[in-house]
């Protein structure tokens, strides 16, 4: 880490910046929250701002996210990992940029490509590998798999497969924050595909009516599995839906971590002040298949090639280098360090104990005083 031009610590607890002011700093760069009025749609890129103070945190989180997913990918191809593997490669700027400035009392509801959001909230690489290896001490104790997890004590809601089922739940999380009156906000993520569902609409509408402190982030990565956005909706920009709910909506380049952070910080600040929800469409590209088994032949090569030029890590690193904040050696060291952390985490997880099959039927209910008497497994 010493190669980075400022000495900030690794992103295990990014919100614990001593002065607590980080969240608003980027915003202070010039993008006034007041610029978001109900119904306004911000043109793509219009909010790009100066390099924020927490740039090293942003870079480190993106690099770590990618390193963990690369390691997982290799393990899967080597047959040492099983189940489902979903990659957020190429989209790291969104969960990282959006989540990096959250406070400890904020809550995050990530979707399935948002490993960076978990990491930004302090989830460790060890926890990630324990989860993928279904270990006894993983966040789900082997009961759920892969990125379908969340460490609740860090304010991360475990997602479920049904998309975007975290969104209705986020309403209640945000209502709780509103009632508590301490300015906590909730971030909810989903993909373009999830916007076709009824749960999505019910959530956006109720959030608007109750003016909940909720930032609704749609990661438009051009596809829902094999289905291109042209077959999912007919509106040019999903942010154009916001006026129909009477809330601000904005579109942002999802591969520009600075722009994402600036815009989301603005929305967070508005929510903290009681300004209600904001809908953000972050435009990006799914660079891998839907999951590791999917080679995504349905995606035109040119599209991938074009987006490959816009890799969020490369782009940000280049900008930092141009600004004299980073050099090639520092970047390489950061990557090596992340790869090493991932490898170490994997080794740790490998040695961790598996769950006890005898505990299979425990914990269906929280109340031990009125056991549901699950039928004993017979035979």
């Amino acid at each position: 880490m010493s190669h980075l031009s400022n000495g900030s610590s690794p992103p295990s607890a990014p919100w614990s910046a001593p002065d607590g002011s980080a969240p608003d700093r980027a915003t202070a760069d010039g993008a006034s929250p007041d610029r978001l009025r109900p119904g306004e749609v911000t043109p793509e890129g219009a909010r790009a701002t100066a390099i924020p103070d927490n740039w090293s945190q942003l870079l480190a989180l993106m690099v770590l996210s990618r390193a963990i997913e690369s390691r997982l990918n290799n393990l899967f191809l080597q047959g040492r990992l099983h189940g489902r593997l979903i990659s957020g490669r190429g989209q790291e700027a969104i969960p990282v940029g959006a989540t990096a400035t959250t406070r400890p009392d904020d809550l995050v509801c990530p979707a399935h490509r948002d490993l960076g959001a978990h990491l930004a909230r302090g989830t460790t690489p060890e926890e990630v590998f324990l989860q993928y290896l279904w270990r006894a001490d993983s966040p789900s104790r082997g009961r759920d798999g892969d990125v379908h997890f969340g460490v609740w004590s860090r304010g991360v809601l475990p997602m479920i497969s049904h998309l975007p089922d975290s969104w209705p739940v986020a309403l209640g999380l945000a209502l709780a924050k509103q009632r508590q009156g301490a300015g906590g906000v909730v971030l909810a993520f989903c993909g373009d595909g999830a916007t076709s569902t009824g749960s999505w609409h019910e959530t956006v509408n109720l959030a608007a009516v109750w003016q909940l402190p909720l930032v609704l982030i749609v990661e438009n990565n051009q596809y829902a599995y094999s289905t291109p956005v042209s077959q999912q909706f007919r509106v040019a920009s999903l942010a154009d839906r916001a006026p129909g709910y009477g809330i601000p909506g904005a579109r942002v380049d999802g591969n520009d971590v600075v722009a994402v952070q600036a815009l989301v910080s603005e929305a967070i600040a508005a929510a903290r002040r009681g300004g209600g929800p904001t809908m953000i469409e972050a435009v990006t590209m799914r660079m891998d298949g839907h999951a590791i088994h999917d080679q995504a032949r349905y995606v035109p090569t040119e599209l991938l090639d074009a987006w490959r030029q816009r890799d969020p890590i490369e782009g940000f690193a280049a900008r930092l280098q141009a600004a004299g904040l980073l050099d090639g050696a520092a970047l390489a060291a950061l990557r090596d360090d992340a790869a090493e952390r991932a490898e170490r985490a994997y080794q740790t997880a490998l040695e961790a104990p598996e769950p006890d099959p005898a505990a299979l039927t425990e914990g269906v209910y929280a109340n031990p005083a009125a056991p549901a008497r699950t039928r004993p497994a017979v035979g």
Partner: protein
Amino acid sequence: MTTEATWFASASAEDTAAPGVTYLEALRTALADLLAEDERVLLLGEDIGTMGGAFRVTAGLQDRFGGDRVRDTPMAETAIVGCAIGLAISGYRPVVELQFADFISCCYDQLVNEAAKLHYRFGIAVPIVVRCPSGGALSAGPFHSQCPEGIFAHVPGLKIVCPATVQDAYGLLRAAVEDPDPVLFFEQKALYRSQKAPLDAAAPVAGIGRAAVRRRGEDVTVVTYGSMLPRCLAAAERLAAEGVETEVVDLRSLVPLDLDTVADSLRRTNRLVIVHEDNGSSGIGAEIVARLAESDALYALDAPVCRVTAPDTPVPSSPLLEERYVPSVERIVSAVRALVGA
């Protein structure tokens, strides 16, 4: 009872001059007491505020506790139940009112996949209560009369509570709200105003998961719950006049299912009739029979069991058809007679 007082009038109120409170008032009292005693309790639902709910269960509560704690929602069951889940895991004790139990179909996904599985997956308790005004016999047709409890009894992670008496309307609702698990609370529209009895709000709250023997008898065991309890008790009276002594077991909750009380009774009577308003196939009656037949309680049966339930059809709207649909006292009496004669 004014016509304004209810959406569908429940079965004609019995002796409204009798002392005590109605089943509906007991529910309202429980909610009021919970709101007064526990800051964490919040009510959510369509038209529960100004209007006091389609059945007036929450009448007056918004005035007393504010729109923030007794909160009207848009018509969006998925959002409402999702919101309740989020509140619950944030430390609140949300109580959702569905306008009719039938609309549980619109939040099925949140209940089955979010609420029911979160504790098993991540050890996060989800103390929500979803109040479901259930059941028919009110000529309310296929979409305002359903009994969805049998469906949800199949879903691990949910608790299913079905109060049949005034005291249980109060006590089990309190127990449901105090329980850390998601509870579907099937309250009976037909009992709202037809049941009236003294309420002892200070009585210790019975936990969820214990059946009650409502009547002792040695000739036959009738197991039931919810709207069918009064009918089973009426049937038992008639049978007693014929010399048949019926033991009536009120399950009170379907999950957890108190099979011990059922099996104990069966061992004494050796004959079993199960009565529920929910349609028969794959209803809770089936599960009760299966659990008994898996144990040596099987040997206690001196005759085949008998389920008296609604037939496997949607709920018809015509009173003439529905009278035949919902199990009647007459049908219960004949079933018992046939069994005892067997």
